[in-house]
């Protein structure tokens, strides 16, 4: 296996274009087992590209480099101040040691149905920047999360997350198998502005997505408990049995509603 370590994004993109079978290596703490099994021939180690690890703010938005580690998110006051929902979600992410390695980009591109940061980023209307050699595009994160497990980014590298400053109320709650260092059973991310309420949850669908029926309901003036329960069912793969998770989501939403 050949390993190359570009120090600029441009270098990395050129390598990617030249080597179709190359695998991007961004630390891989989530995927190290499967990576070792796959035994790729060509590894492009992008962990030395400092431009991918920056956190900047501009015009009411945060620009988060995809290789920002979770602890870096927690340590940077910009996150706690401007995107506190993301901050809270990061606090319950794995363990301290893992947070020093895991990256926001890795968590999203691994696209696990129990990924910790996708739901918060979705409800915050995050956009992602995807770069190719000579091309760059910015799309809503929502569009990127289309498939189950590990997004196929073809010849693109996800370089930046653009998260607007929060301006409203948020709620985050995660239930794991124990208090800390746990894969989520279910987690709720909710963000409410003056005009709209955004809701997403992990652990309840093949890939993390917004709960559209619940959102529609919450954006109405009035609704009943029963309606909310029904909306939750519709948003969580209605043909599957998930009584516990649905009940917990219902409780969490009630908790959120009582707080705002």
């Amino acid at each position, binding site marked *: *296996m*050949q*390993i190359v*370590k570009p120090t600029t994004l441009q270098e990395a993109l050129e390598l990617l274009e030249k080597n179709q079978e190359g695998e991007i290596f961004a*630390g*891989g*703490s989530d995927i*190290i*087992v499967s990576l*070792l099994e796959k*035994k790729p021939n060509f*590894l492009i*180690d992008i*962990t030395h590209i400092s431009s991918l690890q920056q956190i900047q703010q501009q015009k009411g938005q945060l620009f988060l480099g995809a290789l920002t*580690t979770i*602890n870096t998110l927690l340590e940077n006051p910009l996150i706690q101040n401007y995107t506190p929902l993301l901050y809270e979600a990061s606090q319950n992410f*794995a*363990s*301290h*040691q*893992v947070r*020093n*390695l895991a990256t926001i980009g890795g968590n999203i591109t691994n696209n696990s149905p129990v990924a910790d940061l996708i739901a918060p980023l979705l409800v915050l209307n995050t956009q992602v920047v995807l770069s190719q050699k000579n091309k760059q595009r910015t799309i809503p994160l929502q569009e990127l999360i289309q498939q189950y497990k590990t997004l196929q980014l073809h010849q693109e590298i996800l370089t930046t997350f653009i998260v607007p400053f929060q301006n409203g109320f948020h709620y985050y709650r995660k239930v794991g198998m124990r208090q*800390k*260092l746990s894969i989520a059973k279910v987690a709720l991310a909710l963000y409410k502005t003056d005009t709209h309420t955004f809701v997403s949850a992990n652990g309840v669908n093949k890939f993390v997505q917004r709960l559209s029926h619940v959102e529609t309901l919450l954006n109405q003036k009035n609704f009943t408990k029963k309606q909310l329960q029904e909306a939750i069912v519709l948003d969580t793969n209605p043909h599957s049995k998930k009584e516990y998770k649905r009940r917990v989501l219902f409780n969490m939403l009630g908790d959120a509603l009582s707080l705002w």
Partner: protein
Amino acid sequence: MQITCTINNETKKFNITPTQRALDLLRENGFTSVKEGCGGGECGACSIFFNDKLVNSCLLLAFELDGATVFTLEGLQKETKTLQENFAKTGAIQCGFCTSGFILRSYDYLKTTQTPTLQEIEDALDGNLCRCTGYKKIIEAITRSTECK
């Protein structure tokens, strides 16, 4: 392939294979305080300082150590002396297999605070598993180590 890194302030050159884990490289070269408890980043027994950050070496590939600065417990004896003594005194050690990981994490954590609450210490230890002690005496040892400084 060959890599160069600094381990406990000494420059080291190693011949490695691309899929070798940092954990194995360290252990095979005598740094046996770094233990394998699970191989999956869940127990913290393999914790090391990697460019000043405490990480699970079972989740690092050896080639990532190239150009990096690494510290293991072997190289932090002076810095962790008080912690070691307090762990011993309070009964925070039973089988000892998790101990080096806890000592490193405690040292790492106490760099950020000298007045932690019980909850804060518990939260800080979210990456270290112990099956013997029930954690109470470990927390006591950490608390004692703040008073001593």
